[in-house]
C-alpha cells in the first residue's frame, strides 16, 4: 500500500511510514529524558549550586548518557534507515512484521534500562565498567535494545535488496542512501561488539559466571561505545548531503569521492575506539598508536573530504543559481529562513571547528594525556554528538514533520530561531568544558572541592568564569532543545494537517542548473573557509604540543 506524496512525488509505503513515525516518536521521548537530565547535571557540576546529591548525580549521569548517546540517536537512525531504504527508493518495506518486532524489542529494552536506572539499580554510568555491577534487567534491557536495532539494520539491508530486485534503484544507491548504508555497516560492527560484551556481563550479573575480565571488557565495550558514535557521524553526513539537495538543489561536487570517503569510514573508523584506552595499562603503545593514528587518519581524511564536499556542494549550487559575487554571496543568500538548512550548516561548523579539531588532537596518544578523563573530553563530544549529530537530526526533523507525519510545523517563526539558540548554547557549553578540562577539572566527578578527602587540590581560580559560562551555555541550549521538543510534539500530535503542497512551509529546491564554466574553480569560498579551518587546527595542534612539553619537561 502506497500513497504518492504530493510534495516530493515519492511513493510512500504506508507500513514503512508507520514504523518511521513510531521510531521517531521514541527518539523524541529519549531526547526529552536526556535533556531534562542534562540541565540537572549542569547545575550539579557547578559547585555553587551543587543541585543533586552524589548518588543522584551518578544516577542521572547514567540516564543522560544512555538516553542521549544511545536511545535518542539509535531510534532516530532506525527511522532514518527505514526512510532512506523505502521512501527514497520508492520501495515497500520488506517485512513490516519484523519491523514491529524490532521496535518492540527496542522500546522494551529502552523502558527496562531507564526504569532500572531511575530505581537506583544501575548506578554504573553508561560504560558500566566491570566490576561495577547493575541489576540483570539493566543488561538485559540493553541486549534487547541492541538486538532490536540489529534487526532494524537487517531490515534496512532487506529493503535495499528488495529495491534492487524490483528495479527501483540501479547499480549504485543514491548518495544519501549510500551514506546510510555506511552507517548501517558500522552499526553491525557496533552491535556485534555490544552482544559480545553484554551477554557475558549479563550472565555475570545473574551469578552464572564468576567474573568478567575488566581489561577485556573495556576493550570490547569501547568497540560498542565509540563505534556507535560513528554510526551517527555517517548518518549525519548522509543527512548533510540530503539537506544540501533538498534546500539548495545541490548534488555532491564529486559523488565518487564522497562515496570513497564513506568507504574509508567503514574500513577505518571503528578502530579509533582505541582512543578511549589511551591510558589503559593492558594494551601496548604500538597498538594504541597504530589504531589511533596511522590507520585512523584515513577516517579523519574522510571527515575532511565530507566537511569540504558538503559546503562546496551548497556553494556550487548557489553559484550556479547566480549568487556569484565575491567569495561569500552564496553564503549570505543561502536559505537561512529554512530551519533545516540553518541547523545543518551550523552543525557543519560546530562539528568541524569544535568537535573535529579537538577530536584529532585529543585522539592522539601524546596530547591526549593532557586532557584524558577531564571535562575537555566531554566538551569535545558535545561538539561532535550534540552540535553535529543532534543538531543535524533536529534540522531534518523539520522535513519529517510535514512529509512523514503530514503535519504543519507550529510556531514556525520560533522554529527559525531554534537552531541558533541550540547552536550557541552548546557551543558555549562545549568550549567552556574544554577550557575547564585544560585546567584539569575531571569529568564524571560530583565534588571537585574534594571536601572531606585526605588531600586537597586548588584549581586555578580562573575556572570560575568557565563554570559560569558553561551554565549559561547549558541554559541557552536547554531552551533551544525545549523549544524544539515542544514544536515537534505539538506539531505532530496537535498540529494542523498538511493537505497539499500549499501547506508545506519549507521548500524542496529544484536541482541547480548545470555548470557552464569551463575551468573556473567551483567553490572558492569553501576553499577559503577550509584554509581558515586548517589554520585553526594547526594553531590548536601547536598549542597542545607546546603545552605538553611544558607539562612533561624533557631535559
Amino acid at each position, binding site marked *: 500500500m502506497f500513497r504518492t506524496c504530493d510534495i516530493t512525488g515519492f511513493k510512500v509505503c504506508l507500513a514503512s511510514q508507520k514504523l518511521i513515525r513510531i521510531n521517531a516518536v521514541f527518539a523524541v521521548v529519549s531526547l526529552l529524558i536526556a535533556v531534562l537530565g542534562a540541565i540537572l547535571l549542569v547545575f550539579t557540576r557547578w559547585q555553587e549550586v551543587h543541585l543533586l546529591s552524589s548518588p543522584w548525580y551518578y544516577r542521572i549521569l547514567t540516564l543522560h548518557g544512555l538516553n542521549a548517546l544511545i536511545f535518542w540517536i539509535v531510534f532516530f537512525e532506525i527511522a532514518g534507515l527505514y526512510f532512506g531504504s523505502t521512501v527514497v527508493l520508492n520501495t515497500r518495506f520488506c517485512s513490516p512484521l519484523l519491523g514491529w518486532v524490532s521496535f518492540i524489542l527496542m522500546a522494551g529494552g529502552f523502558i527496562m534500562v531507564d526504569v532500572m536506572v531511575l530505581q537506583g539499580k544501575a548506578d554504573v554510568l553508561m560504560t558500566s565498567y566491570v566490576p561495577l555491577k547493575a541489576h540483570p534487567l539493566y543488561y538485559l534491557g540493553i541486549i534487547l535494545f541492541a538486538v532490536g536495532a540489529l534487526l532494524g539494520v537487517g531490515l534496512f539491508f532487506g529493503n535495499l535488496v528488495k529495491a534492487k530486485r524490483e528495479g527501483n534503484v540501479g*547499480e549504485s544507491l543514491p548518495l544519501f542512501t549510500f551514506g546510510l548504508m555506511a552507517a548501517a555497516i558500522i552499526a553491525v560492527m557496533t552491535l556485534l561488539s555490544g552482544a559480545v560484551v553484554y551477554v557475558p556481563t549479563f550472565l555475570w550479573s545473574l551469578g552464572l559466571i564468576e567474573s568478567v575480565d575488566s581489561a577485556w571488557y573495556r*576493550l*570490547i565495550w569501547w568497540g560498542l561505545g565509540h563505534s556507535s558514535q560513528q554510526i551517527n557521524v555517517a548518518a549525519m553526513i548522509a543527512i548533510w548531503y540530503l539537506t544540501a539537495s533538498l534546500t539548495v538543489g545541490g548534488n555532491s561536487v*564529486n559523488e565518487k569521492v564522497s562515496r570513497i570517503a564513506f568507504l574509508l569510514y*567503514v*574500513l577505518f573508523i571503528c578502530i579509533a575506539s582505541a582512543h578511549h584506552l589511551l591510558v589503559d595499562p593492558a594494551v601496548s603503545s604500538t597498538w594504541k598508536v597504530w589504531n589511533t593514528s596511522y*590507520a585512523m587518519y584515513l577516517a579523519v581524511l574522510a571527515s575532511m573530504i565530507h566537511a569540504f564536499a558538503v559546503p562546496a556542494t551548497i556553494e556550487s549550487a548557489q553559484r550556479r543559481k547566480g549568487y556569484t559575487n565575491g567569495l561569500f554571496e552564496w553564503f549570505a543568500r543561502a536559505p537561512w529562513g529554512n530551519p533545516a538548512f540553518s541547523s545543518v550548516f551550523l552543525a557543519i561548523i560546530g562539528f568541524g571547528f569544535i568537535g573535529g579539531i579537538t577530536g584529532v588532537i585529543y585522539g592522539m596518544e601524546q596530547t591526549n594525556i593532557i586532557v584524558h578523563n577531564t571535562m575537555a573530553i566531554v566538551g569535545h563530544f558535545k561538539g561532535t554528538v550534540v552540535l553535529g549529530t543532534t543538531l543535524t537530526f533536529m534540522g531534518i526533523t523539520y522535513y519529517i514533520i510535514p512529509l512523514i507525519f503530514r503535519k504543519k510545523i507550529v510556531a514556525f517563526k520560533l522554529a527559525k530561531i531554534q537552531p541558533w539558540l541550540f547552536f550557541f548554547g552548546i557551543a558555549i557549553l562545549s568550549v567552556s568544558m574544554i577550557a575547564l578540562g585544560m585546567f584539569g577539572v575531571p569529568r564524571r566527578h560530583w565534588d571537585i572541592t574534594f571536601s572531606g578527602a585526605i588531600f586537597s587540590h586548588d584549581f586555578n581560580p580562573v575556572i570560575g568564569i568557565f563554570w559560569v559560562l558553561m551554565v549559561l551555555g547549558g541554559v541557552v541550549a536547554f531552551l533551544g532543545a525545549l523549544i524544539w521538543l515542544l514544536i515537534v510534539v505539538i506539531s505532530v500530535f496537535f498540529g494542523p494537517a498538511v493537505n497539499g503542497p500549499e501547506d508545506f512551509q519549507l521548500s524542496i529546491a529544484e536541482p541547480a542548473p548545470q555548470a557552464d564554466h569551463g575551468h573556473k574553480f567551483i567553490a572558492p569560498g569553501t576553499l577559503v573557509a577550509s584554509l581558515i579551518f586548517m589554520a585553526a587546527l594547526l594553531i590548536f595542534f601547536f598549542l597542545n604540543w607546546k603545552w605538553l612539553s611544558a607539562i612533561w619537561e624533557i631535559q
Partner: protein
Amino acid sequence: MSEDQNTISNGEQPKKAFLHGLLDNYFLMLVLGLVVYALSYCIWGVIEILGTQPIPDEIKQTLLNP
C-alpha cells in the same frame, strides 16, 4: 540524486573497476570493514591483554591488605 558520474569507460581499468564494484557491493564492504576492525582492534587487542603479566602475588597482597 544523480547516478555515479565516474564510470569505468576510460583507459586505466582494473583498479577503478575494483573500487567501483566495491562501492556498489555493500556486503563486501561490510565484510572488509569487519575484517579490519576485528584484526586491528579486537583480536590484536585481546592478544595484548592475554599477554599481560599477572600482578605478582606479593604486590597483590599488599594492595589488598595494606
